[in-house]
Every structure is written in structure tokens, then in C-alpha cells.
């Protein structure tokens, strides 16, 4: 859980090398793929760990180039995300009412060393993600597999009995309960094959055994990761990876604003490059004044949710009227401008984000663009807090987050609520926000779902099982009624029925006002002029690395 939440947050913070995408370059089309050239990816990350068990990568970014999974995502401009078979022939066959899932591998699959990929390699890959030394990866599957709660990985010699491999080509997963979104879970990095003979948990992430179109040529942490073609990969067995460039270079430790400047000038090497970090407000303003650069900008549709978490277990915020007052007092317009204006997002009112199937739009606290101070004041008076309410706001210590925090601060100040900003560096911020003992009243948080289902919008943030201990229920919201709704929706295998339940949970949670939804972020990425088929689809809000090619 912790890992999953962090993945989402970090994606938005652009601190991890997760990819993004945009939709404006769709006109370039997907027609003919040119082969050859060296694609450069400029990333602010100082470290790229390719170990699938430790990764929170989206299926369409870095790890997707090197490691195939049972299933993967088909991400195209202007179309909703779908889950498609990758190593498997189908996206999984459920039986036992959704509690058992069976996959069969395609024929002729090979690792980069020429050996065959078997179902045992996938079983081993999933098993090692349970081990304590390989932490930090997406962990949805860990609580779903039977016996997962007490399993600690294969290094102590034990296997996980709930994953069966009846033949080298087939693999069966036994779940603790019905889970309709399992095909999405099987697209996560941990479902990549790892040959047991080549595994050393300490170093595997440096140079994993590739199953995708690229393998590691060199990996200098902090400087550059270079990928070259894996000749054992066959395009015939792969419907989503195009493998255009001959090699891909991740240039690490790139300052985002410096990278943006060199991409704007589009000279030399950067013509065949793109930035993995989305643009900040200042760069966006600059690109918008430069028609040549603007043509190379790809902006996502409104997606990841930014919100103000109200610590529902602390002081005055235990009172529903105080939380409702905050819903009205916050100046969402100032917040949006502080994040970069209309190009950087849309005002949010719901928890399920646009682009997720089954979302129902509503606004429980209609307050106009910049809040309703009068209403906030009357609610505070009702709660007996008409003056002197003072709250601390936990926020990441970077210029963008501080600008956003100040927008919140000045907004609620109008209703007489004093906010003290507590900026913390990334590590302390996430550990404090997800700690078991909370030391904050408010926290500025954002969330990108790990897979495009309302499940991933709601469960990690509002289930009472997700409070503290590194988990992402930062509002510390606990309501048995909502927990029951979440359990029902999770077990529902019929997608339509599940979506209706999630939409109901969304509204029910907002009635308790544990968070103030602020914006659905739009993320903009800049490419060099030679990069083709660079787009950001409706989900996720990052470019698709797998379909890029370079112009001659």
C-alpha cells in the first residue's frame, strides 16, 4: 500500500522516472514507424532502479521498454486505456467467481540471453516482490494472493502456494476474494519474468535479464542509463511496443528547468530527446509564448487529483462543520493559478478523476471559483470556532508546492483560519504524512491512480485499513459504511455494477468532507523536433515511451 501510494504521488512530483504523455502530437499519426537513431530521455532522477519488484513504474514507461509482463496497457492518443495481453495470450481467464485467474504464455518467448521464458520465471518474479529486501514496489497483489500476508519471499527457500504453474506455459493465481481488476494487477512490474538462476537481489536492478525490446548496455547511476536492442525480442509476439530507436539513453540528474530550456531551444542532441518531468508554471508560460516550442508540447487531459487532506482525527478537524467550512473557505482559483493556471489543471470537486470509467460529476460544496467565505464563517460559528482556529499545513519543500500552499493559506485566512506552513523535504514529507502518529492538521497531497479504475482512486486514500504505517489515507478517514461500500465494489466482477458502487462511495466520502479536492492536474511534456508519435493519452498523464520513434 505504501508503495502504491508513493508511486502515485511521486509520479506527480516528477521525482521518479515515471513517464508522462500528452495528446497534441497525435496528428503525427501512428502510421509508419521509422527504425533507428538514439532517443534521449532527460530525467531529474538521480537513480534508476530497474528491479521489477522495487518499481512503481507505469506500464508504459522505463521498465516497460525492458521488462514485459503478463498483461500490459494499450495506450493510444484520444482513446481510453485498455489492458491487453503481453506475455500471456489473454488478459486472464477468471473462474470460481473471480477468485482464480489463469494465464497461458505465448509461444517462442525468449529472454535476452536466449533462454525460454517459462511460467516458473513469472511465479518467481512475483514471489521475490514479497521479500523484505526488495521493498518499494507496487503492492496491490500482496494482500490479494492467498497466503500473501505471511509470505516473505523466496530467499528463505519457501514458495507461495497460491501461484501454481501446472505447465511451463500456464500460471494460475488463487486470490483471497473475487477481484475484477486482476488483469490490471497482472500488468504491474512484479509480474515480469525473472530467471531464478540470474537473480541477486542486491544487484538485479542494475542490469535485469530483459524480455522486452531493449536491454541494458550500461548503467551509470546518477549519470546515464543506456539501452540497446534485445535481438531475442520479436515484434510478432508484441502488440504494444514499437521499438523505433536503436538505442535509448536516460540522462539522469537533469535539472528540470535546465532540461526545459534546452528542449525549448531544440538544438543538437535534444532534437531527439524529451523531458520525463512535466513542465513547471514558469516553463509553461515561456513555451506558450514560443510558437515553435508550443508545437512540440504534449499536454495531458485533466487527470491526477490534487487535494488538501484534513486530518479527521485531530483537534477541531474532528468536527464535520469545521471541515465543511474549509471546503467553502479554500480559494481554488488562486490554487489553480499558483499551479500554473488553466494549462496546468481544472478545478476539482469529486474524488474519482476524469478519464476513469464510471465517474459521476457532482459538487457537494458549490462555492464559486474562489470560495464562499460567508458560508465558511457561518459554519465555523456553528462549530464554535469563529475565531482563533490555527492549523498546520504539511507541504513538500519546493517552489511549486510552497506557491500552492500559500494560495491555500491566504484563502482560508479570509474566513479567519490561520494556517502555518510546515515545508518538509521529500523523505520527511512522505514519512510524516503516512506515519501512524500524525503531527499535522492539513497536508497538500496528490494522487495518480496506479491503474485506470475507480478502485485506485478511492481504496488507497479512504479505506480505514490504509491509515498510517506508510499507507496513503492521509486524511485518516475511517467510516465503516464506506469500508463496506469499498469491499462490495472491489469484489464486484461486473464492471458496470462496480462503477456504480464506486461512484456512490465517492459521494458518501465527500459528505464527510475528509479532503478538499483542489484540481485535476494537467501535465505538459516537451519533446525535441525529431521525436515522433509523442502523446499523452487520457490516462495516465504521462507520455507513452513504448510507441516513440525518431525522424530520419
Amino acid at each position, binding site marked *: 500500500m505504501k508503495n502504491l501510494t508513493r508511486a502515485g504521488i511521486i509520479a506527480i512530483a516528477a521525482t521518479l522516472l515515471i513517464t508522462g504523455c500528452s495528446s497534441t502530437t497525435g496528428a503525427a499519426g501512428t502510421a509508419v514507424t521509422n527504425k533507428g537513431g538514439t532517443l534521449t530521455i532527460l530525467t531529474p532522477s538521480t537513480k534508476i532502479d530497474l528491479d521489477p519488484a522495487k518499481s512503481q513504474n507505469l506500464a508504459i514507461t522505463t521498465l516497460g521498454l525492458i521488462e514485459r509482463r503478463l498483461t500490459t496497457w494499450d495506450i493510444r492518443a484520444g482513446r481510453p486505456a485498455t489492458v491487453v495481453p503481453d506475455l500471456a495470450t489473454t488478459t486472464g481467464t477468471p473462474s470460481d467467481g473471480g477468485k482464480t485467474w489463469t494465464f497461458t504464455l505465448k509461444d517462442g518467448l525468449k529472454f535476452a540471453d536466449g533462454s525460454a521464458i517459462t511460467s516458473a520465471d513469472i511465479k518467481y518474479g512475483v514471489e521475490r516482490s514479497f521479500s523484505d529486501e526488495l521493498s518499494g514496489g507496487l503492492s496491490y497483489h500482496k494482500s490479494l494472493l492467498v497466503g500473501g500476508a505471511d509470505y516473505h519471499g523466496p530467499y528463505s527457500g519457501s514458495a507461495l502456494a497460491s501461484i501454481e504453474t501446472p505447465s511451463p506455459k500456464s500460471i494460475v493465481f488463487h486470490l483471497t476474494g473475487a477481484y475484477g481488476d486482476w488483469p490490471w494487477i497482472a500488468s504491474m512490474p512484479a509480474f515480469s519474468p525473472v530467471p531464478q538462476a540470474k537473480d541477486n537481489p542486491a544487484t538485479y536492478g542494475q542490469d535485469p535479464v530483459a524480455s522486452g525490446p531493449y536491454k541494458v548496455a550500461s548503467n551509470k547511476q546518477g549519470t546515464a542509463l543506456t539501452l540497446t536492442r534485445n535481438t531475442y525480442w520479436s515484434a510478432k509476439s508484441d502488440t504494444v511496443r514499437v521499438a523505433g530507436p536503436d538505442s535509448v539513453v536516460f540522462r539522469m540528474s537533469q535539472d528540470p528547468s535546465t532540461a526545459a530550456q534546452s528542449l525549448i531551444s531544440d538544438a543538437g542532441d535534444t532534437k531527439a530527446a524529451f523531458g520525463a518531468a512535466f513542465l*513547471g*508554471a514558469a516553463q509553461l508560460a515561456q513555451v*506558450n509564448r514560443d510558437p515553435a516550442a508550443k508545437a512540440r508540447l504534449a499536454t495531458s487531459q485533466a487527470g491526477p487529483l490534487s487535494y488538501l487532506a484534513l486530518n479527521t482525527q485531530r483537534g477541531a478537524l474532528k468536527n464535520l462543520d469545521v471541515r465543511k467550512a474549509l471546503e467553502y473557505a479554500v480559494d481554488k482559483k488562486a490554487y489553480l*493559478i*499558483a499551479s500554473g493556471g488553466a494549462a496546468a489543471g481544472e478545478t476539482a470537486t469529486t474524488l474519482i478523476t476524469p478519464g476513469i470509467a464510471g465517474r459521476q460529476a457532482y459538487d457537494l460544496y458549490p462555492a464559486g471559483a474562489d470560495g464562499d467565505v460567508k458560508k465558511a464563517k457561518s459554519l465555523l460559528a456553528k462549530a464554535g470556532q469563529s475565531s482563533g482556529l490555527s492549523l498546520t499545513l504539511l507541504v513538500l519543500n519546493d517552489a511549486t508546492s510552497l506557491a500552492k*500552499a500559500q494560495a491555500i493559506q491566504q484563502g482560508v485566512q479570509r474566513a479567519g483560519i490561520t494556517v502555518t506552513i510546515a515545508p*518538509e523535504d521529500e523523505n520527511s514529507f512522505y514519512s510524516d504524512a503516512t506515519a501512524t502518529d500524525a503531527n499535522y492538521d492539513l497536508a497538500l497531497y496528490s494522487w495518480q491512480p496506479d491503474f485506470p479504475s475507480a478502485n485506485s482512486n478511492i481504496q488507497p486514500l479512504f479505506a480505514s485499513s490504509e491509515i498510517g504505517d506508510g499507507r496513503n489515507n492521509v486524511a485518516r478517514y475511517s467510516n465503516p459504511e464506506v469500508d463496506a461500500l469499498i469491499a462490495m465494489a472491489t469484489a464486484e466482477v461486473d464492471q458496470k455494477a462496480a462503477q456504480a458502487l464506486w461512484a456512490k462511495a465517492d459521494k458518501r466520502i465527500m459528505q464527510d468532507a475528509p479532503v478538499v479536492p483542489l484540481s485535476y492536474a494537467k501535465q505538459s511534456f516537451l519533446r525535441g523536433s525529431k521525436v515522433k508519435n509523442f502523446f499523452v493519452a487520457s490516462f495516465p498523464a504521462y507520455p507513452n515511451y513504448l510507441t516513440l520513434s525518431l525522424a530520419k
Partner: protein
Amino acid sequence: MTAIGSARSDAPTGLRRVAGRLRADRWATTGLVVIGLFVLAAVFAGPLTAISGQNPYTYHLDRLDDSGSPLGFGGGISPTHWFGVEPLTGRDLFAIVVFGSRTSLLVSVSATVLAVVVGVLVGITTGFFGGWYDRTLSRVIDVLFGFPSLVFMISLTAIVPTSFPKPLLIILVIGFFGWPSIARVVRGQTLSLRERNFVVASNAMGGGPWHIIAHQVLPNVSATIIVFATISIPSMIGVEAALSFLGVGVPPPTPSWGRTIGDAVTWVQTDPSYLVFPGAALFLVTLAFNVVGDGLRDALDPRRGVVSR
């Protein structure tokens, strides 16, 4: 030797002479005027920004376009916003710069006072008493000199609980790393003063060590202390700005030049005036303190006095 002693013994004349020399130094006079203006701006920040009806906290979103950059010439310069407005918030930049001088001067002057008090105390006592006390503290000073102080300050300001008042923390931290240099200079002067006839005489007449320190040694190092304090203020301002620039200074929304400069760097292509005004303020005030410090040193230097007269 005795010349110095006699020059110090009639202090009023000395002060008047120093003031006269300073007045003759055009650069130092200009520097003093600039410092005076900044001090006045810092003290009367409220009334000063009230002239145009502004304060550094109110948002003016109507002054921004829909991407958050200021509308109009030079970052939104207008009769109500003399320096334009801040991108993304629309807050008045003039008010931010004026209130920022308050932060800068308060932190730097307080940190200097702290550094001078500690430095003089340590310098005089180590120089005067000597022995193991001197050897121990001199090693401590050596260690502090070689210490990567900026890195230490950043980590310290990052780990101290947020409930501890940040401005006080910054004053303490900057002041703590400021005292060794002044202590070393004062110690050197004390070492030579200790052997002088008037100190030996005072000792022979039964003056206790603290009496000698207070009445014989301290007055004779006061010139050094004044020059040193003046010269260290701009470096303290610089350190405060650097900490704010790096995001570990006073927390927002309290205006601080360093933080504004840090934010403005990314805007330099689209809104250069956002960087120019706080940058110019920081440049002017540090330059002014340095020029005045140089002027003071020249004015207090007895050899220069002999040559010039």
C-alpha cells in the same frame, strides 16, 4: 605603541576624527545613506507600502493572465504596483521587497551581534588567559573554520521541528558560524596588548584580570570590532539569502529576498523584473555595507591617518 594608547585614551576626539574622515570618503557616505534608506524602509515597511495601498500578502489574481504570468509591462508595473506583481499570486512585488528588507536586516544584524558578542568574549579571554583554555578553544575555532557550514546549516534547519521559530533558528545558526573569525582576530590583538606597558602597569597596581580586560584591553580592540561587525553584516545577509534561496530560510509567506530570487530564476525568460528588483535590493545593501566597512577601516587606521595628514 604609546601613540596608539594615547589616541585611544581620549575617545571623543578619536570618534570625531573618525566621523570626519568618513565624511570625507564619498563612497562611504553614499553607502551610509543607502543603508539608512534600507533601515528606514525596513522600520516603516507598513506605512511605506500603504502609500500605494499594498501589503505583501494580498493576492491580485486579476493582474495575471490565465497561465499565471503578470499582465502588462515589466511584470505588471503600474501606479498601484510600483515594481509589478509576483507571478502565480499577483502579490505586490514592491511590498515583498520592502518587507523582505526587514527579514534580511533583522536576521543579519541579530546574527552579527550574536557572533560579535561570542567572538569578542572568546577572543579576549583566550588571548588574555592563554594556557590550556586558549589551546582548547583555538582548536575549536580551527575546526569551525574548516567546517562545511552551509551544508550543516541546511541539514540543521531541515531537521529542527517546525514548531521552533524559524527566524530565531536561522539567527542562531548563522551567528554560531560567524564568531570564529572575529574571535581569532581579537585574540591576536589581545595577545599583543597583554604585553604592553599600560596593561602590565595596571596589573602591577593590583587590577584584576576582568578589570584589565574591561578597561584596558576592550577599549583598544573596539575599533577592530566595529570594522569587523560592519563587514560581517553583508556576509550574514548573503548567508540568509542563500538559505532562503535553497528553501531552508524563513517559511513563506514571510517575504525574503533569497526565496523570491530563487523563485524568480525560473521566470527570468518570461518576467525578468521579478528577478531584477529583489536582486538589485540585495546587491545594493550588501555593497553599501561593504563600502562603509572599508571606509571605517580606513578611517580607523592610525597609519593612514598619519600619512594623510
